[in-house]
């Protein structure tokens, strides 16, 4: 009996050892690998912070970002506004980041500006990825369509992105939707190219040939075999698009060709601050720092995602 137990113990310890060896040689799960990547962790945390900031904007000691107060124009950061309310009580409000030429609180405008930047970045990425995915899959799969679509995409890519976006905005009245569309269009060809190149390489794979020869319908092949292969590269590409869209939106607003000036966006605050930059640099510096940190965080996240999810991407694009 004891012998049996002993052998049993032996076997189980053997199994344990084997499992352990298996575990250490087993590839880490995607989440574990992502958490081990410094860029992902740092970039992701800053982004999470920014998202939190934009959601909680009304609770962060802000005031109405478009409230104009002519008596407190062009105040430097830290200036305190003191007044007495109806109950003869003394009230005070500190302009943490000063005010602009119309007396609006820069701190509130910067915090609310986070919302616009994130909405633009994420919407542009989602739109251009979906459009690019559909166009790219069909272009890569339907041969007669390929030539035509790619000529159009080549033409679009020959126009420098910011220039195309500026020109598109000038075609219609400026608004959030126009700006999002104008930033999306120049991004689409890059996604199409990426998706098409993946489709072209996937359709040479034996399992796709097998699916074709057994008579699988086109939409099923695209859905079951091609689509899953585009996920990792598109997540990475999408992250980079978020960064570039936030940047382009700020540039458009800064040049005065973007979202209407009364909406607080980082670009608009800076455009406003340009006139008196020499005396009051804070209206450019504060939104500028927020913009740079956000874009940096998204780019770091993108680099980290690329390294962990799709190491070949750098060469592919």
């Amino acid at each position, binding site marked *: 009996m004891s012998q049996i137990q002993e052998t049993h113990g032996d076997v189980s310890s053997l199994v344990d050892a084997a499992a352990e060896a298996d575990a250490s040689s087993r590839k880490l799960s995607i989440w574990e690998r992502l958490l081990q990547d410094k860029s992902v962790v740092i970039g992701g945390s800053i982004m999470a912070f920014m998202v939190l900031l934009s959601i909680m904007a009304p609770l962060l000691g802000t005031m109405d970002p478009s409230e104009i107060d002519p008596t407190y124009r062009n105040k430097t950061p830290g200036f305190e506004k003191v007044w007495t309310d109806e109950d003869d009580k003394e009230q005070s409000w500190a302009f943490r980041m000063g005010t602009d030429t119309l007396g609006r609180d820069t701190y509130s405008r910067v915090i609310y500006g986070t919302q616009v930047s994130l909405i633009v970045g994420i919407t542009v990425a989602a739109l251009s990825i979906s459009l690019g995915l559909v166009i790219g899959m069909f272009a890569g799969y339907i041969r007669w369509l390929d030539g035509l679509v790619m*000529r*159009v995409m*080549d*033409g*679009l890519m*020959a*126009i*420098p*992105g*910011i*220039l*195309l976006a*500026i*020109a*598109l*905005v*000038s*075609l*219609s009245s400026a608004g959030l939707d126009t700006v999002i569309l104008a930033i999306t269009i120049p991004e689409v060809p890059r996604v199409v190219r990426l998706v098409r190149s993946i489709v072209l390489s996937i359709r040479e794979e034996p399992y796709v040939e097998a699916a074709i020869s057994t008579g699988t319908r086109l939409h099923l092949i695209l859905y079951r075999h091609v689509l899953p292969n585009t996920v990792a590269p598109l997540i990475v590409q999408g992250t980079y698009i978020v*960064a570039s869209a936030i*940047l382009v939106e*700020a*540039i458009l607003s*800064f*040049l*005065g*060709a973007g979202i209407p000036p009364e909406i607080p966006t980082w670009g608009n605050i*800076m455009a406003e601050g340009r006139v008196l*930059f*020499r005396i009051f*640099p804070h209206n*450019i*510096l504060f939104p*500028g*720092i927020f*913009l*740079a940190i956000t*874009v*940096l965080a998204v*780019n*770091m996240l993108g*680099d980290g995602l690329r390294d962990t999810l799709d190491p070949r991407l*750098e060469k592919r694009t």
Partner: protein
Amino acid sequence: MYSFFIRRVLATIPVLGMVAIFVFFMLRMTPGDPAAVLAGDNGTPQQIEEIRESLGLNEPIPIQLGIYLADILRGDLGQSYFFKRDVTELIGLRVEPTLALASTTLILTILVAVPLGVIAAFRRGTWLDRGVMGFSVLGFSIPIFVLGYILMYVFAMELKMFPVQGYKSIFEGFGPFIHRLVLPSIALSVIYIALIARITRASVLEVLGEDYIRTAYAKGLPRRVVLMKHALRNAAIPIVTVIGIGVALLIGGVVVTESVFNIPGLGRLTVDAVLGRDYPTIQALILVFSFTYVFINLMVDLTYTLLDPRIRY
């Protein structure tokens, strides 16, 4: 080789044609009647009709497209709504500052980025490498206008080393010309340096893993020779390609930099045209910038064959 040259040149025609067609339809999509705008506020219906006739606006769309393409080939890019003069002429007047800014930026970029990338590759994994890579990520993320204003604040306003804004033509003397271009060129080159340094590093690293590099070391060649003759020359193609592709960044950056530093070039003209809804000028500038971009990349591709005799298409 010649057949490759010819094929490569011919391949740009459909791209340029596509750009022209886009621009044409953008012009047609614009709100308002161009003839009425050109005739001015006091234009009589008869004048407007005459302008419509002379612009060919009464023809069907395909014929208008034909006329438009023929006009482009003749160098006629239409009339500015705002300046009431030929856009071609207008662009001619504004091209010098932009060319000056772009050239100084390009030179600065290559002088800084290529050595940085090579050093990073050679000292892979050291703090130097990490520093260059960190700078590269940072450079991609700092918006040109934020950087421009920071440079302006520190070096022009606080230290008073450079003029704050403005431009002086090279014909008014080289000193004042370059003095005013220093800050704009630095602001504009940072993103470009980030891009080129990164590609240079990746490209050199790849070459350093090749057998012929080991052979070169094995036969006792000094590091410098291995680097210059074997590594850099073979790593050059991706670098030159990205310098070409990066021109798109440069063009986008010119628009912003010229606005920040108040330089009266094509970038400023673009912004002014957009703000003033001067559609013929906007369209013409898109054509000029895109054609320049395509042309530079054509040159880059043709340079390949000179850099690497192995390439035969």
